[in-house]
């Protein structure tokens, strides 16, 4: 027994730490295995099979399937509807991202500095976020209704001309933006509120002793202290806005004349209504590449800012 131990010990020492690390690795693998399985099945595999699909003429009906090379990608570059829907997506992102960040901070700050009845504000700012998108769309559709909808009827009663909120080109996108802000601002609000509550009170106390007014405290303490949260919210918000689909699909179905059709809706229309899965995959991979580029750029800018 002793001899055995003394014999094995140098051997183990010779091989360094590797043999000792081995069992660790194995148990580590089993810990991540469930996630890895789900990840492979629901993320990795669809990504690979989608990429393959984008190189074929695969149709939802099972027809086609022949290899098309980069034909789909070339077609997408020449497709007016792709560019139009990408443009709409960009406009939507620009119009929603900034207000959703600024507004949520303002709301969170107002609640934090102590509007009376804090719980009520917290509840009413966050409540819309809990509604499913179908409910949100139905609610606003009725309010936007021409003729006797809540908003248009009120406008008429005041003697103001009615507005075609969802059916006028140029107005419809703003209506969708308004609905989206109302619906989703609560989530950013909550993130900001918790960030604000994490700022240590002694910073404010010290500043106050040094004679800093409320505005100075906001600019020099509050905003820098929530910087990390801002970076995260901006990131999440831009990605979420680029992925817009549901509320547009339900409110305007992309109309009027395609002026609110987002790129994801176009992908849905070509793939699922038009059966052209291969072509739809190609557009979604182009869009994916675009998102990766935006995300990397954003990360760089934000990191530079943070440091």
């Amino acid at each position, binding site marked *: 027994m002793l001899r055995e131990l003394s014999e094995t010990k140098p051997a183990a020492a010779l091989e360094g730490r590797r043999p000792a690390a081995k069992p660790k690795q194995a148990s580590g693998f089993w810990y991540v295995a469930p996630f890895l399985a789900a990840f492979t099945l629901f993320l990795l595999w669809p990504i690979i099979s989608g990429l393959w699909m984008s190189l074929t*003429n695969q*149709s*939802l*009906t*099972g*027809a*086609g399937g022949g290899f098309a090379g980069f034909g789909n990608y070339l077609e997408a570059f020449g497709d*007016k509807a792709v560019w139009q829907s990408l443009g709409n997506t960009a406009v939507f992102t620009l119009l929603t991202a900034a207000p959703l960040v600024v507004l949520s901070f303002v709301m969170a700050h107002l609640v934090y500095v102590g509007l009376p009845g804090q719980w009520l504000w917290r509840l009413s700012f966050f409540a819309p976020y809990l509604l499913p998108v179908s409910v949100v769309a139905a609610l606003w559709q009725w309010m936007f*209704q*021409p*003729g*006797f909808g809540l908003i248009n009827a009120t406008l008429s009663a005041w003697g103001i001309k*009615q507005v*075609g909120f*969802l*059916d*006028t*080109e140029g107005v419809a996108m703003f209506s969708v933006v308004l609905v989206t802000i109302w619906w989703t601002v609560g989530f950013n609000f909550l993130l900001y509120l918790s960030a604000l509550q994490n700022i240590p009170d002694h910073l404010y106390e010290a500043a106050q002793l040094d004679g800093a007014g409320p505005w100075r405290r906001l600019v020099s303490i509050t905003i820098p202290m929530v910087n990390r949260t801002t970076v995260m919210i901006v990131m999440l918000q831009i990605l979420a806005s680029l992925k817009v689909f549901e509320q547009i699909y339900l409110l*305007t*179905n*992309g*109309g*009027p*004349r*395609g002026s609110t059709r987002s790129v994801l809706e176009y992908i849905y*229309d*070509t793939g*699922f*209504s*038009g*059966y*052209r*899965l291969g072509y739809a995959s190609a557009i979604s991979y182009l869009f994916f590449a675009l998102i990766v580029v935006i995300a990397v750029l954003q990360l760089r800018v934000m990191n530079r800012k943070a440091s």
Partner: protein
Amino acid sequence: MSRRSILRSAAAATGLLATGGLSACASPQSATAIQSWDLFSGADGVKMRGMISKVSAAQQLNVRPVTLAWGSPYYTKLAMAASSGKAPDTAIMHLSRLAGFAPERLLQPYDMDLLARHGVVQEDFAPAVWERCIHNGKLFAVPMDTHPFILLYNKDLAAKAGISDATGKLKDMASPQAFMDAAARMAEATGKQGLSFGHVLDSAQSWRLFWGFYNQTGASYRLTPGEPAELDKPKATEVLSFLIELLDGKKAANNQTYHGAIADFTTGTTGMIFSGEWELPAFAEAVPNLGAMPMPTLFGQPASYTDSHVWVLPRQVQDDAGFEAAHKFVAGILKNGLTWAQAGHIPAYAPIRATQEYRALVPQVDYAAAIETPAFDPAVWFAGAGTDFQNQLSQILSAALQGTVPAKDAVDSIVDYLQTMLSTPNPT
């Protein structure tokens, strides 16, 4: 009774003996089980469920109906189910979708002899409808109804406006001008507007109205994939200009939604409405003295925009007893067409239309003639109910009806869109 179903009943009977009284509740198992998909979720959905249970009981079938939401997702689901081999035994489709549904790949043709044995033959259907069900010489669909786009009117208001005859029916309106005069007089009678038409944000309504009247002009069109789109632009512009003039805010509002138009008609704000006949039960409840007619012939030839609910047999992985049972089921449903007619639809099965009971159904019988002159969607793969084709064209037309785009430009946009679709590879 097929040999298989006899065997099955025998097996069920053995089971009954083996388990004694316990299996009394298992008796429906002895009937052939088939699954059917439909998209009727409104008032006609209730009627359909009633017909299915009636046919199930009478024909000793065990039908499991599944109702899915109307529209483009329904066809996505049906196509995916059929191409993956998980399809129902029988399903409802719009006839306008048949050409684009890869009949040879996703559907099975009917066995005409089998249908005839259950009492359904070609002579029972209007030729214009039957022809659209044939693909490569085989029958891929059995029509249950045709559901045209029609003109409904409030008889009391029409009498007040002086545009109806002694029997309460609208007087002949044979030109665009005559129709606009009638709408103007109706507007005086209601004190608000004459006619309702809801199209704003709707993915089909403007197309239905436009295409019906375009077909009345007798203008030709040719949509062949890979070739230039041929549409009679002057005629299309003429029709669209008429519609823009009609929806001037006085004769008819030009910014009404589908449900808004219904609300206006049912509350007497307007006295006429262009609508699908499927809304008939709702109208009949609100407007007791309700009249209806096919789309008025304003451009020379009678034609009403029409689609048709048909029964199809999605392709099965292996042939089983469901194939024969589905024939039996479809034939049984057709013979219960009178129930279906109450929902407003015109039964496609002629023996039903010939019955005393149907002849007495007012106002259904007043627009039954529309079945002879249907204006279907073009028979190309990208057209039909619930397609992006209807959605895109409706958006163009709707913008024109609201006065934001001139008629001529809208027609150019339509031809552009058709051209794009014709040069797109056919995915079926």
